[in-house]
């Protein structure tokens, strides 16, 4: 397919083979992002991918842009400095649920609050994959992990609700199960002026799937379909702000959940001078 050939030009063949496990959804998500970049015809020299630590963050090394594989949880802070220094760059943050919501939660909420001009793609597989399957702040209550052998006792974060509350001006949820929809969300996120956040539900058959008897990749992707519902922005907003916790419970909303026009921070700061206000 012509589209697939397009995407391969963004990869670094010298970095192959990659580290992802068979059945892992991360590759599907990356391809959706690369198709979005191709569709928008972004100049690869002016695309920067900043990532933290974890399986998803390793993807930064595989793509032929300006890539920064930073420290655990700190990608939004690195990306903030880069975007402020170079507002001309398209800055994409790749993070995972442990990276972004546990160790990096502080940086994530503040990047959202400032409305830093970047697309943040949070790969949520509900577990720490790279370190062997420990419980994450997104692991559903009752699910098993190596550090929750009798089931997780902690309530999980809803990343999208968190980001809306923190001030992100574009918030969406996508699925590895729906790569074409995800691509469209990435296009909208890349076009957005300000902090665009997309939580992508992806699967970890090797650890989360195995420990919780959820099957392999295909079964886990099909479960995404069963447990989610695509909704329009208005309904999603209502459901998210007033609804019960996402898990366990009713179907999780997908699609664009929140969008508002707010000045992008790098532009605000450049315009801001002594005696003036933004």
């Amino acid at each position, binding site marked *: 397919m012509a589209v697939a050939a397009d995407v391969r030009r963004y990869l670094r063949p010298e970095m192959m083979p990659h580290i992802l496990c068979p059945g892992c959804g991360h590759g599907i998500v990356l391809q959706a992002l690369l198709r979005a970049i191709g569709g928008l015809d972004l100049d690869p020299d002016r695309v920067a991918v900043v990532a933290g630590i974890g399986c998803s963050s390793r993807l930064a090394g595989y793509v032929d842009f300006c890539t920064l594989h930073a420290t655990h949880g700190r990608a939004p802070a690195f990306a903030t400095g880069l975007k402020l220094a*170079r507002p001309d760059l398209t800055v994409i943050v790749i993070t995972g649920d442990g990276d972004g919501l546990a160790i990096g939660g502080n*940086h994530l909420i503040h990047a959202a609050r400032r409305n830093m001009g970047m697309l943040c793609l949070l790969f949520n597989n509900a577990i720490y994959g790279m370190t062997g399957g420990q419980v994450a702040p997104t692991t559903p209550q009752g699910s098993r992990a190596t550090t929750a052998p009798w089931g997780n006792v902690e309530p999980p974060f809803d990343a999208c609700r968190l980001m809306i509350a923190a001030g992100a001006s574009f918030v969406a949820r996508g699925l590895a199960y729906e790569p074409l929809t995800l691509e469209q969300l990435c296009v909208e996120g890349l076009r957005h002026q300000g902090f665009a956040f997309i939580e992508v539900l992806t699967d970890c058959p090797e650890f989360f799937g195995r420990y919780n008897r959820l099957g392999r990749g295909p079964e886990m992707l099909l479960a995404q379909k069963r447990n989610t519902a695509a909704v329009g922005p208005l309904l999603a907003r209502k459901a998210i702000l007033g609804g019960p916790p996402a898990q366990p419970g009713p179907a999780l909303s997908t699609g664009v959940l929140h969008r508002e026009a707010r000045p992008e921070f790098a532009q605000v700061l450049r315009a801001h001078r002594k005696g003036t206000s933004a």
Partner: protein
Amino acid sequence: MGEPRLLPGNEACALGAIAAGCRFYAGYPITPSSEIAETMAEFLPDVGGIFVQMEDEIASLAACLGAALGGMQAMTATSGPGFSLMQEHIGFAAMAEIPCVIVDVMRGGPSTGLPTSPSQADVQQARWGTHGDHPIIVLAPASVREVYDLTLRAFAYAERFRTPVILLYDAVIGHLRERVELPDAVERVRRPRPHPGPYRPYAAPDGEVAPLAAFGDGWRFHVTGLAHDERGFPTQDPAVVAALQQRLQQKIEDHGDEVTQCEQVLMEDAEVAVVAFGIAARAAREAVRTARREGVRAGLLRPITLWPFPEEAVRAAAGRVRRLVVAEMNLGQMLHEVERAARGQVEITACLRADGEPVEPEEIMAPLAVPSWR
């Protein structure tokens, strides 16, 4: 020279940074360093620079490194507790070879310690605070004017060696107002750009440090805190990793003569010498003067560069004098280095103080004036 003015050390640091070409500052408020951030916030926008107050010190240095990869010269400033938080990214900067300047205005510790009192207790943290073997340069000014001058040098070294450089001084130097005449113009530090064509950001052609391209300027490359090859791609190949470790270490060690500076005061005929840096060296200078008046041939060795430590100068002095007195405001952090450098050649007396008060000339005078060898 400009007009004489009364300037506190922290302001001199900010002005030196701007003169050097620093156009990005990210920081988090902490006593006794906050005036640096406040001065940068006031003046950076006027020169087209960026000031941003981040959510913590971890993020502050992260933002600096992001900006440095975007081609800007970047600085942050903090004190002990914040310096502890920055260690993670000092290591990243050392490994990924990203130039940056970190100011640590030392206060009493450990932990929250003595927020408004001076200390010199971060000597070893500045060298070894982050995990793993890594290169570092640490400069220790002793006056307001020297804060300005060493800030300029810090940026020059950061760019030349692609390394984090730490400016280490204490609350007294930071808040002390002194009459200074700053130069009208100084040469701005420039970052070399790579040649067009294939780019290896971690190669060392002819033992030199490869230029660092800026993101967005046409060179696409990978930056990681993982051990990496010359292209910046992760590797676990023992030969490549060993070469990387060696190169990181050597790139500064090989230029020790250029980087390591140590002031020598009245050392020609000294029979006893004080080793002291920063604010303690000012008390030591006074003590040496008094000792001379009383007939003791005293001298002063003042490390201006703390790391790489001026081993040669200390060793040479240890071979000449009858006693070294190490005066510092901690419980003996530089003392270890002096003992190591002296190799048992000489009697070493420690004059240590870690109670939040600056060391007094009289305290240093006491061990100088005990001529046990007479």
